[in-house]
């Protein structure tokens, strides 16, 4: 039994990137961070999940910003691991970008609904395997993974790649074995969300994780912009969110309803098609331009001045 588990561990470690495009993307994050070091100019990092992957076209954003008079040399990169939220973004930023020469000048985080509140639980197996190292364990256990089950899962995922990737492998296997699996998985997800909403007791949302991100970014001279992204069905934002972002010295942009973005521009409930991404990217650049212009009007902090 142990031999079989060891064999599957070895197999996953050797072939992990073949599991999904998402894993390939995550494994490319260090090289994305290194790319940011190369060349001069101002660095803008778009960080988010699959909504950012499908919705933000870096080329269009750059073109539109230049058209709007931002002539400084720009380097725009995107990091968009699937099914992630603020906890994963915090540690991804901390793990891959908080290092000399890798820091962006501006971090643009795309989110929807309550992605930024503390109610969205982190996924211990992803945090452990992809976004943290041994030095992060005390912080993770103090702030983000506080129950015994989560901690055990975190530690196991830190040790075992096959354990950390088991849901990916399950999805991959079911996709092959079960007819219409993707369609039904989406229906099941929708039903689970509805059940959660029905059964959930309304609670006051808190933003402690967001404050931690703002402190981390501010201490490194990085300006953070939060962008509420569009979804097929419009959604409400917590009225406390914008004040919380602004109190922390960060910028909030509401891009939930860009003009010209029709329902057909979505592939599903939340992901934009290529045409939709073009419309949205123009709109986003338009909204980002004044803030970026103001930030870039300041001289960039010297790398040596950044702790």
């Amino acid at each position: 039994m142990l031999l079989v588990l060891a064999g599957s561990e070895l197999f996953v470690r050797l072939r992990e990137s073949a599991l999904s495009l998402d894993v390939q993307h995550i494994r490319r994050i260090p090289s994305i961070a290194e790319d940011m070091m190369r060349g001069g100019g101002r660095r803008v990092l778009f960080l988010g999940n699959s909504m950012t992957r499908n919705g933000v076209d870096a080329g269009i954003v750059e073109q539109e910003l230049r058209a709007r008079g931002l002539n400084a040399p720009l380097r725009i990169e995107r990091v968009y691991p699937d099914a992630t939220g603020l906890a994963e973004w915090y540690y991804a930023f901390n793990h891959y970008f908080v290092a000399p020469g890798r820091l962006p000048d501006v971090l643009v985080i795309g989110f929807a609904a309550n992605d930024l509140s503390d109610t969205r639980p982190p996924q211990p197996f992803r945090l452990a395997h992809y976004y943290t190292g041994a030095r992060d364990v005390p912080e993770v256990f103090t702030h983000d993974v506080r129950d015994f089950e989560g901690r055990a899962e975190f530690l196991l995922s830190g040790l075992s790649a096959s354990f950390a990737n088991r849901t990916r492998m399950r999805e991959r296997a079911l996709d092959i074995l079960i007819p219409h699996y993707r369609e039904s998985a989406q229906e099941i997800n929708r039903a689970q969300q509805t059940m959660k909403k029905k059964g959930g007791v309304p609670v006051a949302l808190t933003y402690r994780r967001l404050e931690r991100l703002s402190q981390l970014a501010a201490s490194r001279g990085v300006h953070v912009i939060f962008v509420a992204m569009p979804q097929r069905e419009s959604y409400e934002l917590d009225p406390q969110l914008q004040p919380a972002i602004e109190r922390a010295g960060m910028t909030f942009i509401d891009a939930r309803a860009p003009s010209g973005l029709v329902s057909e521009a979505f592939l599903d409930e939340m992901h934009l098609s290529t045409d939709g991404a073009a419309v949205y990217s123009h709109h986003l650049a338009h909204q980002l331009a004044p803030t970026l212009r103001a930030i870039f009007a300041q001289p960039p902090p010297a790398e040596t001045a950044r702790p």
Partner: protein
Amino acid sequence: MLFNSYVFWVFFALVFVLYRLLPHRQQNYMLLAASYFFYAYWDWRFLFVMWYSTLVDFYAARAIERVGSPRRRKTILVASISLQLGLLGFFKYYGFFSEQVVEVLARFGVPLSVPKFNLLLPIGISFYIFQTMSYTIDVYRGQFKATKSLADFALFVSFFPHLVAGPLVRAAKLLPQIANPRVRRPDDFREGLYLVLLGLFKKVVIGDNLAVIANTIFSTPTEQLSGVECLVGIYAFAFQIYGDFSGYSSIAQGVARWLNIDLSINFRMPYLAVSPSDFWNRWHISLSTWFRDYVYVPLARRGGRVTKWRLYSTQIIVMLLSGLWHGAAWTFVLWGLYHGLLLSGYRLYTETKQRLLKGKRGAGANVAPSRAGVVLSTLVMFHLVCFGWLLFRADSMAQVGQMLARIVTDFRVTPLAVSAFAMVVFYAGPLMIYELWLDRQPDLLQLTRVPWLRRGLAYVYCVLMLWFFPPAVSNVFIYFQF
């Protein structure tokens, strides 16, 4: 502290190490403390309820044994049963029955206001109260001698592997194992491992994965579902509840086995049953036999004369009570009534059939059913049980009616229906194949006796499924609510 949680296994590892280090009496004290800790981990306040139940029956049984007069013995028994059922009724049924009374009286224009308590149901209360009651009744009947050790009795009530969801174990089986030094048998580890692994597989791989499908279908408004989707939802629930409950029982047995204690068997391939009575000999065996010994037999024999119709009506009453035991809701009552009618109807059918056959062929003319007949009976019985699960799982009687109407009128095979059915087959199919094999074996632990390669392959399959097919959401064991 769920059996499928990491915290339980850390807890058990500590218990196991201490258990190995201690002598018998200290083992018992340690197990008692561990059991209380296990129970208090949910809510320490529930401990008081369990202590109440423990003390009532410990002293009632001792008093019954001390007292000579049959009348006084009976009074003590009735008092102890009333106290226990009163406790159970207060926590479990007060809200339901008071609501019904208020509603009925309101229909007759009689307004009634009853106090409402927002009571949390102590976890596993139905299990340990039934267990303690059976002990007192056994002592009253002279079938078992009352124990003099409160600590032993407290451990009998609270022994953590089976505390919150059974199996219900009789005093005659468990108390001697507690009172006497336990022997480490060579097969304990191997058989315990098999039971734990099988239980985890049933709970995590089958129960929890199929819960996602069953919950999705039962929570979707019925008008948005096709009949085939409804049917697949019921199949999913049938295997969810089986995986969940028999998985718990199996882990409980396995863990107890590692502590050198045998618990009762609770399930024996129930979906291979060929008749209602066969099903109840295979499903939740410890509860079925409890109702048989403490309710059915005394009720059927009351007044001395046992008539055929009394047997039928008693069977229906017992199953109604069994339904009510599962929960305070009309759907559970109806589920019990349905099974009572099935059992009585089947009894009537077999008796009539036997009479007719005897008339035709003479006495002793029993014809063994053909293989096709067995397969057909199994399929019919499975679907009859599934209908019962619809009553059990539905949120309301309206949902039962709507789903049934869909099943008989809407035959659309949708992508969700195909996919959900394929998942039922993927998760539960291998277990059913294994059970078909096991059903022909002389022993439920037969897999532990096959050559190591075959056993190893089965274990590897279970472990790989547990490792790579975790459920999207981990669920609490369904039977905890009872």
